[in-house]
C-alpha cells in the first residue's frame, strides 16, 4: 500500500502544477475537508486508509492534499493516468464499504453552499471530479453520497484511494468544466432540492470570462469561453453550474466592464507612439503610413547591417596594413608597403574579411536632395538628384576633394525640374571612408549650401 501510494504520487501525468495559482486557497481547503470529513463521518479509524494516514501522516497528507488541489485545479480532461491510479485504488474494495455515509448528504451540500468565497475553491475542487470519471467508473459504489471534495481528494490522492470505493460508476465526463455531482449516480431523485436552488440562482447563458488572473485559470485553459448554462445532464449528473458560479465570482472581481474606458485609447496611443518612434529613427522617411514606416525600418536595418560589415572590413584592412608596415618598417619605403598591402589581402586566405571585396550602398533623402552611394571595392559611384538650382557640381566636387575621393567621371545636367548627376570616383588608398559617411556628407553639404544660397543666384 505504501509502495502504491508513493508510485501514484509521482505520477502527475495530466496535471500541470505549474499553473496553479490559488495556492492559498488550496492549502486552506484540505484542512476543512479533513475536518468536515471527520465530523460527518463515523469512521473506524483503521479501515480508512485516509484516516489511517491522517493519524499517522498528518503533514504528509495535508501536503499531499495541497498537491492534489493543485493537480485538480487544471487539466479537467480525463486523464489516462487516472485510470492507472484507479487500478491501484481498486485493490482495496473492502474499505470502501465501511464508510458510513449517512451524514454526507448534508455535509456535501453544505460545502457547496458555504461561504461564497470558498466557492471558487470548492468548485475547483469539485471540478476536479471530472478528471476522475475514469477512475470512478471502475467503482461500484454503495448507495451513499460522498463529500465531493473529499472524494476528489481521495480519488486523486495516493493515500486516499480507499475512499473512492463508495463512488459509483460514472459515465465519462466531458472534458471541459463539468461538475460531477456525485449524488446523481446514487439513484437519488434527479435533482436534490439544494442543487436545483443553485441552478436557479445562476443566470443562464453566462459566459465564462476569458482567462484573466489566476482564478480563471483554475478551470483550465482549454475551455472555450462560450456561454455556459447550468444544466443537468441526465446521463451522469454532470453539472456545469460550477463554472458559472466561478464566473459569477470572477466577474465581480475582474469584470471587463469595469475596465477604464481610456485603456483602449491608451493602447492605441501607445501603439502610435511606437510607430512614431520607429519613424524618427529612420533617416529618410517618406510616407507616414504604417506600412511605409515598417518598410523604411526594414530597409534601414538592412542598411545598418551593411554599414557594420563595411566598417569591420575597413578596420580589418587597416589593421592588416599596420601590421605589415610594422613588419616591413626597416626594409622598404612605407609607400611601397601600402601598395603591397593592398595586394596582400586578396591573396591572404586567413582573414575572410580582407579577402572579400567591399561592397555597400546607401540611399539618403532630404527635402530637396537625394543621394545614392554605391561602393564596390575602391570605386564609389554617387548619384545625386537635386531639386533646387544650386551649383551642384562645384559643391560636390569640393566635398569629394575633402573626402579624398578621386573624381574620374562626372555626367549630368538638368532634366526637367531636377538636376541629376552621376559621379564616378575612386577612393584613395588607405582611406577609411564608408558609404554612410559619404552620403551623409554630401547631403549635408547640399542642404547647407541650399540654405546658404537664396533661391535666386547670387554672388
Amino acid at each position, binding site marked *: 500500500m505504501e509502495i502504491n501510494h508513493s508510485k501514484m504520487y509521482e505520477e502527475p501525468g495530466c496535471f500541470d502544477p505549474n499553473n496553479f495559482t490559488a495556492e492559498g486557497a488550496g492549502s486552506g481547503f484540505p484542512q476543512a475537508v479533513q475536518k468536515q470529513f471527520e465530523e460527518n463521518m463515523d469512521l473506524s479509524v483503521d479501515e480508512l486508509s485516509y484516516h489511517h494516514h491522517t493519524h499517522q501522516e498528518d503533514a504528509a497528507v495535508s501536503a499531499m492534499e495541497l498537491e492534489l488541489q493543485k493537480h485538480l485545479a487544471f487539466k479537467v480532461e480525463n486523464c489516462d493516468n487516472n485510470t492507472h491510479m484507479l487500478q491501484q485504488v481498486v485493490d482495496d474494495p473492502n474499505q470502501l464499504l465501511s464508510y458510513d455515509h449517512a451524514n454526507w448528504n448534508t455535509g456535501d451540500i453544505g460545502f457547496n453552499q458555504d461561504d461564497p468565497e470558498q466557492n471558487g475553491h470548492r468548485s475547483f475542487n469539485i471540478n476536479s471530479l471530472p478528471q476522475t470519471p475514469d477512475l470512478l467508473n471502475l467503482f461500484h459504489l454503495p448507495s451513499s453520497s460522498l463529500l465531493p471534495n473529499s472524494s476528489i481528494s481521495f480519488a486523486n490522492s495516493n493515500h486516499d484511494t480507499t475512499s473512492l470505493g463508495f463512488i459509483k460508476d460514472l459515465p465519462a465526463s466531458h472534458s471541459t468544466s463539468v461538475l460531477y455531482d456525485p449524488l446523481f449516480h446514487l439513484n437519488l431523485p434527479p435533482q436534490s432540492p439544494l442543487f436545483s436552488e443553485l441552478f436557479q440562482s445562476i443566470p443562464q447563458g453566462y459566459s465564462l470570462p476569458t482567462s484573466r488572473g489566476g482564478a480563471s485559470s483554475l478551470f483550465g485553459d482549454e475551455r472555450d469561453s462560450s456561454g455556459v448554462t447550468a444544466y443537468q445532464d441526465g446521463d451522469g449528473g454532470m453539472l456545469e453550474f460550477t463554472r458559472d458560479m466561478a464566473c459569477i465570482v470572477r466577474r465581480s472581481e475582474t469584470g471587463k466592464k469595469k475596465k477604464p474606458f481610456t485603456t483602449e485609447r491608451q493602447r492605441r496611443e*501607445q*501603439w502610435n507612439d*511606437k*510607430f512614431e*518612434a*520607429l519613424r524618427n*529613427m*529612420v533617416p529618410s522617411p517618406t510616407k507616414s503610413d504604417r506600412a511605409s514606416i*515598417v518598410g523604411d*525600418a526594414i530597409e*534601414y*536595418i538592412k542598411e*545598418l*547591417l551593411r*554599414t*557594420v560589415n563595411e*566598417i*569591420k572590413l*575597413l*578596420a580589418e584592412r*587597416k*589593421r592588416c*596594413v*599596420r601590421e605589415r*608596415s610594422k613588419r616591413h618598417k626597416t626594409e622598404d*619605403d*612605407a*609607400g611601397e608597403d*601600402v601598395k603591397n598591402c593592398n595586394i596582400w589581402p586578396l591573396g591572404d586566405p586567413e582573414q575572410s574579411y580582407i579577402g572579400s571585396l567591399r561592397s555597400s550602398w546607401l540611399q539618403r533623402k532630404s527635402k530637396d536632395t537625394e543621394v545614392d552611394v554605391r561602393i564596390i571595392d575602391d570605386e564609389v559611384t554617387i548619384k545625386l538628384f537635386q531639386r533646387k538650382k544650386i*551649383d551642384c*557640381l*562645384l559643391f560636390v*566636387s*569640393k566635398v569629394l*576633394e575633402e573626402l579624398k575621393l578621386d*573624381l*574620374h*567621371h*562626372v*555626367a*549630368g*545636367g*538638368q532634366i526637367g525640374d531636377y538636376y541629376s548627376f552621376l559621379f564616378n570616383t575612386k577612393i*584613395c*588608398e*588607405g582611406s*577609411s571612408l*564608408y558609404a*554612410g*559617411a559619404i552620403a551623409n556628407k554630401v547631403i549635408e553639404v547640399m542642404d547647407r549650401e541650399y540654405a546658404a544660397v537664396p533661391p535666386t*543666384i547670387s*554672388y
Partner: protein
Amino acid sequence: MEFLGSASDALCIAQARRRQVYDDSMYKSKNLHAERRRRQKLGDRLLALRSLMNKATIVEDAITYIQMLQRNVKVLSDQLLEMDSLSVQEDEEPTRDEINASEQMKKYGIKEDVKVTGIDGNKLWIRVVFEKKRGGITKFLEASTSLGFELTDTNVTTSKGAILVSSCFKGIYGNALGVEQTKKLLQEIIRNM
C-alpha cells in the same frame, strides 16, 4: 608462402582501410544529416517564435535593434577614425600620381586644349582638356563660376592623365560672352591651375 601471406595481409589492410574510410564517411554523412536536421529544427522554431510575437512586441524589438545597430556603427566608426589618426599619413602617393599624370599626357600626346562653340542662343559648348591634378576639376569649376558661368549638362572624363570637360556653358547673369572671349577666359583658367 610468406609472400602470399604478406599479400593477403596487405589486401586485408587495404580492405580494412577502405572500410574505415567508408565508415568514417558514413559517420560523417550521418552526422551531417543530423546537424542539418538540428539546424533546420532550430530555424523553424525560431521562425515560429517570431510569428508568435504580437505586433507591439515586434515594433518594440525593431526599435531596440535599430538603436543597437546605430550604437555599433558609431563605435566602429570611431574606432576606425582612431586608427586613421594613429596611422601615418601617406603624402607621397598623390604626388606620385600627379607625376604620372603629366608623364602620361606627354606620352599620349594629349595637349591642353580649349574649344568653344556657340549653340542655340546664349548657350556655348566648351571642350577643355587639361592636366589631371588633385582638385583640378574643382578649381576649374570654381574659376568658371567666379567668372559668372555655369556648367549645365556636363560630362567630365579622366583618361591617360588628362581631364576632359565637355559641357554646356551658360552665362549666369544671362549675358553671354562671345565665343572668342570665352575661349580666352578658359585658357586663362587652365594656365592658372
